[in-house]
């Protein structure tokens, strides 16, 4: 009898090892279901890595190609914009996000993030600039922020841009391959969400203003690599998603001065399959609104709102999946909890970005394909 119990114990522990190792998944996850009610129309073709996308008031599009080209798609034609800053095209870096000022009609400012080599060290780091468009030329260029130090590592540039309604611009910079150095240290750049005034100055009410050696532009920290950002039109708060390592991609609602935990707490594991930490939560760190296991490699995040064309998507968010080649819809309840997930446009390709246009149409950018418009079947 005793022997039997011993054997049972051994078997149970064997099972536990087995479960931990290959069965790395979420308990009680919201299952994702196929929604086949949508298809797409190609709007711009023959693009390589269309990282950023923006809509100008005249209905034309601005598209950044990661390799360093800025395209103005107007009257059905690609016009190459001159005067684009030289980018450090390396790994995930290059010419990244693009976004117009909320009052663009009056001031003409266009905000761009890119991988910049500015500075003494070899390599590059994330930079935010603004400029105006004059015909097919960028003029009045001003660098508003340059993260430092540079590094020759290729990954984690972050770089999504968003504006709130109070005169601030937010952007992200990923950890630049320095997990144990950057995200938890507010005296260092990288692994952060930043908030600046629209002219690049640091708002006096930023959380770390006045703290010795702090990077005062930081708004929140403990991030890994945020490549999706949008403002919730209902609440005005910034929502961000970020890449985890192997598992543990997260959606977070960004709060002033908050620590999002990476790498002290995480639902992800090392690429090698080993644990980074067993800690999943701490009282002084934020829990994600939602997390993915396995990783979907999210890029681009859009709140869909007030559309006539896609009423079923209003009040919900869309996220691109680089890994699984689809567009994910996450449906929210009145308390902003994720209650349903759907896979739209299965196998469409690596979805780099998703945006709602001012006219309510929804556009996605697909690597190796181009800009596609979501259409109901």
């Amino acid at each position, binding site marked *: 009898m005793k*022997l*039997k119990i011993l*054997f*049972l114990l*051994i*078997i149970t522990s*064997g*099972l536990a*090892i*087995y479960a931990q*190792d*290959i069965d790395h998944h979420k308990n009680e996850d919201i299952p994702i279901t196929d929604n086949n009610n949508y298809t797409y129309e190609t709007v711009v073709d023959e693009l*390589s*890595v269309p990282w950023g996308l923006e809509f100008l008031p005249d209905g034309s599009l601005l598209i950044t190609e*990661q*390799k360093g080209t800025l395209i103005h798609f107007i009257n059905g034609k690609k016009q190459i914009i001159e005067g684009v800053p030289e980018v*450090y*095209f*390396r*790994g995930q*870096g*290059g010419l990244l996000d693009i976004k117009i000022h909320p009052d663009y009609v009056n001031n003409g400012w266009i905000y761009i993030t890119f991988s910049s080599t500015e500075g003494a060290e070899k390599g590059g780091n994330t930079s935010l600039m603004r400029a105006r468009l004059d015909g097919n030329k960028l003029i009045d260029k001003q660098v508003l922020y340059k993260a430092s130090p540079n590094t020759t*590592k*290729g*990954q984690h540039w972050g770089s999504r841009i968003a504006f709130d309604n109070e005169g601030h611009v937010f952007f992200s910079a990923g950890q630049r*391959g320095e997990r144990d150095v950057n995200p938890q240290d507010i005296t260092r750049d990288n692994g952060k969400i930043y908030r600046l005034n629209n002219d690049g100055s640091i708002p006096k009410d930023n959380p770390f203003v006045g703290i010795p050696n702090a990077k005062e532009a930081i708004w929140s920290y403990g991030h890994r690599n945020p490549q999706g950002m949008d403002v919730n039109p209902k609440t005005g708060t910034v929502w961000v998603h970020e890449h985890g390592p192997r598992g543990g991609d997260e959606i977070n609602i960004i709060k002033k001065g908050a620590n999002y935990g990476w790498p002290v707490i995480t639902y992800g594991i*090392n*690429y*090698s*399959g*080993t644990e980074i930490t067993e800690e999943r939560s701490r009282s002084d760190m934020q829990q994600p609104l939602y997390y993915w296991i396995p990783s979907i*490699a999210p890029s681009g995040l859009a709140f869909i709102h007030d559309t006539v064309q896609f009423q079923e998507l209003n009040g919900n968010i869309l996220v691109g999946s680089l*890994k*699984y*080649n689809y567009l994910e819809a996450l449906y929210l309840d009145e308390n902003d909890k994720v209650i349903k997930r759907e896979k739209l446009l299965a*196998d469409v*390709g*690596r979805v780099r970005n998703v945006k709602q246009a001012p006219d309510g149409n929804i556009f996605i950018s697909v*690597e*190796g394909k181009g800009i596609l418009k979501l259409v109901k079947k």
Partner: protein
Amino acid sequence: MKIIITLITAVIIMSLYAFNQTSNYTFSSGQDYENRHIQDTTLKNSMKRGEVLYADFCMQCHMTDGKGVEKTYPPLAQSDYLSEHKNAIKAVKFGLNGEILVNGIKYSGAMADLGLYDDEIADVMNYILNSWNNTSEEIITPELVKQIDK
């Protein structure tokens, strides 16, 4: 008695399985080439540099064990796509777009151009071609990488 024998068998199978699973994730590349007694320190050094580059530029998709993610990111370990070195160098140098067949499985996701220098491509190729039980007679040099066109 029968039950006990069944249990013993089960334990052995389980522990073998668990052992196998764990060993799949072991990152033993350094040992791999040490054990094969490669005398050429040039290759050894190239692979060492390549290992660092692999962790920065390739691992997120192709994983530490080079096995990728089936049907999503193709394997580099024991991959028939690598038998023609030129193809692999081309992919690293210029990126890949369109469907490819690797070990009989279709992959259609795009791979971006990585912005690596020719010497770095040589290093990461030497690492890939000599890790995870991959072996290569040919040493990839920056000169060879330079010659390869789109």
